[in-house]
C-alpha cells in the first residue's frame, strides 16, 4: 500500500508535469550551494599541510568522481526497472543519465589529471583507479553508441539496458581499487585515513557534493522530460502538457498540403449564395435563394 506514490512515477504525464515543477527548485538550490561551497572552499578553507593550495581541486574533482559512479548506478537501476517491469519512464531516465554520467567522468578524469601533475609528477598513470574510471567513460560512450545504433526505441532500450546492467560490475571495482591493489591514488576523501580531517575542509566539500547532486537531478529531469516527449509523441496527453487541448493522434491523417484540392478552407458565411467560385454557390438550393 505504501508503494502507490512510487508507481505514480511510472506514469509519463505525471512524471512530466511533476518534473516541470521540481526543476527550478533543484536548479536554484544547486546554484546557491555551488556559490557557497566555492567561496568556502577557495577562500576560507585553510591550505593542506602537505599539498598546500593544490588540494583545492578536490572541491570539483571529488563531487564529479562521486557523481560519475552514482549516475551509472542510477542508469543501471533504471534500465533494470525498465527491462523487468517495462516501465517507459525508467528507460527514459536511463537514456538521460548517459550523457550526464559521461560528462561527470570527463570532469573527474580531467581534474584528476590536473591534480596528478603537481602531486605525482605526471598527468596520467595506468593506476587501477584511473584505469577503471577510464573504463567507466568507455562504458558510458558504449551505452550511448549502442542506443544510437538502433532506429527502434524499444530494441535500443533492451540492448542498452543489458549493457548498463553488465557494466555496473565496474562500479565496485572503481570504488575499491585503492583498497584491493597498490595504487598511487589516495583513499576515500571523506571517510578513512586518507580523508580530510578538519571541518573547515570537509564542510565546503560536502556542500559542493550536495550542489553537484542537485545539479544532476535538475538536469536529469530536464533531459527526461525531453525523452518522454519524444517517446510519447502519439499520446493524447501531450497536447494538454504543452498548453493546448488533448489531441487524438489516431484520428488524424497526414499533414495537409497547401495545394491539396481535397481540403478546402472554411468559407465565409457571406460568400454562400453569392457569385463566388465556391462549390456551395453552385448548389441548386443556394441559387434558388
Amino acid at each position, binding site marked *: 500500500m505504501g508503494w502507490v506514490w512510487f508507481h505514480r512515477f511510472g506514469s509519463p504525464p505525471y512524471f512530466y508535469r511533476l518534473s516541470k515543477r521540481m526543476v527550478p527548485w533543484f536548479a536554484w538550490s544547486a546554484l546557491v550551494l555551488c556559490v557557497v561551497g566555492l567561496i568556502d572552499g577557495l577562500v576560507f578553507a585553510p591550505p593542506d599541510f602537505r599539498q598546500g593550495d593544490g588540494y583545492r*581541486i578536490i572541491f*570539483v574533482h571529488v563531487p564529479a568522481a562521486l557523481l560519475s559512479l552514482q549516475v551509472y548506478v542510477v542508469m543501471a537501476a533504471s534500465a533494470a526497472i525498465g527491462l523487468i517491469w517495462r516501465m517507459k519512464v525508467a528507460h527514459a531516465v536511463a537514456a538521460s543519465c548517459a550523457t550526464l554520467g559521461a560528462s561527470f567522468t*570527463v*570532469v573527474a578524469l580531467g*581534474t584528476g589529471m*590536473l591534480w596528478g601533475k603537481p602531486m605525482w609528477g605526471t598527468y596520467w598513470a595506468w593506476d587501477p583507479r584511473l584505469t577503471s574510471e577510464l573504463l567507466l567513460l568507455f562504458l558510458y560512450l558504449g551505452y550511448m553508441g549502442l542506443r544510437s545504433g538502433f532506429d527502434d526505441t524499444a530494441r535500443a532500450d533492451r540492448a542498452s539496458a543489458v549493457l548498463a546492467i553488465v557494466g555496473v560490475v565496474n562500479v565496485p571495482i572503481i570504488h575499491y581499487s585503492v583498497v584491493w591493489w597498490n595504487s598511487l591514488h589516495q583513499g576515500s576523501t571523506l571517510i578513512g585515513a586518507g580523508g580530510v580531517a578538519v571541518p573547515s575542509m570537509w564542510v565546503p566539500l560536502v556542500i559542493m557534493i550536495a550542489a553537484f547532486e542537485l545539479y544532476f537531478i535538475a538536469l536529469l529531469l530536464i533531459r527526461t522530460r*525531453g525523452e518522454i516527449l519524444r517517446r510519447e509523441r502519439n499520446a493524447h496527453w501531450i497536447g494538454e502538457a504543452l498548453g493546448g487541448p488533448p*489531441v487524438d493522434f489516431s484520428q488524424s491523417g497526414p499533414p495537409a498540403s497547401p495545394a491539396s484540392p481535397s481540403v478546402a478552407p472554411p468559407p465565409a458565411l457571406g460568400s454562400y449564395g453569392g457569385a463566388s467560385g465556391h*462549390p456551395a454557390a453552385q448548389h441548386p438550393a*443556394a441559387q434558388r435563394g
Partner: protein
Amino acid sequence: MIHFLQMGGYATYIWPAFALAFIVMGLNIVWARRSLHMAQTEARRRMLSARPRPQPPRDFPGLRP
C-alpha cells in the same frame, strides 16, 4: 587578490581544473535545454498537424425546401 589568484603556486592547475568543470557543466545545461526545446517544438508541430481539419461542405440541409 594576486595572492589568492596564485593559489600558492598551484594556479596553473587549480584554475584550469575549475574552468574545465564549469565549462562542461555549462555545456550540459545548454545541451539539456536544447534537447527539451527541440522535443517540445517537434511535439507542437505534430500537435498542429494532427488537429482535425474542417471538412468541405457536402450539402446544405438547412436550405432545403
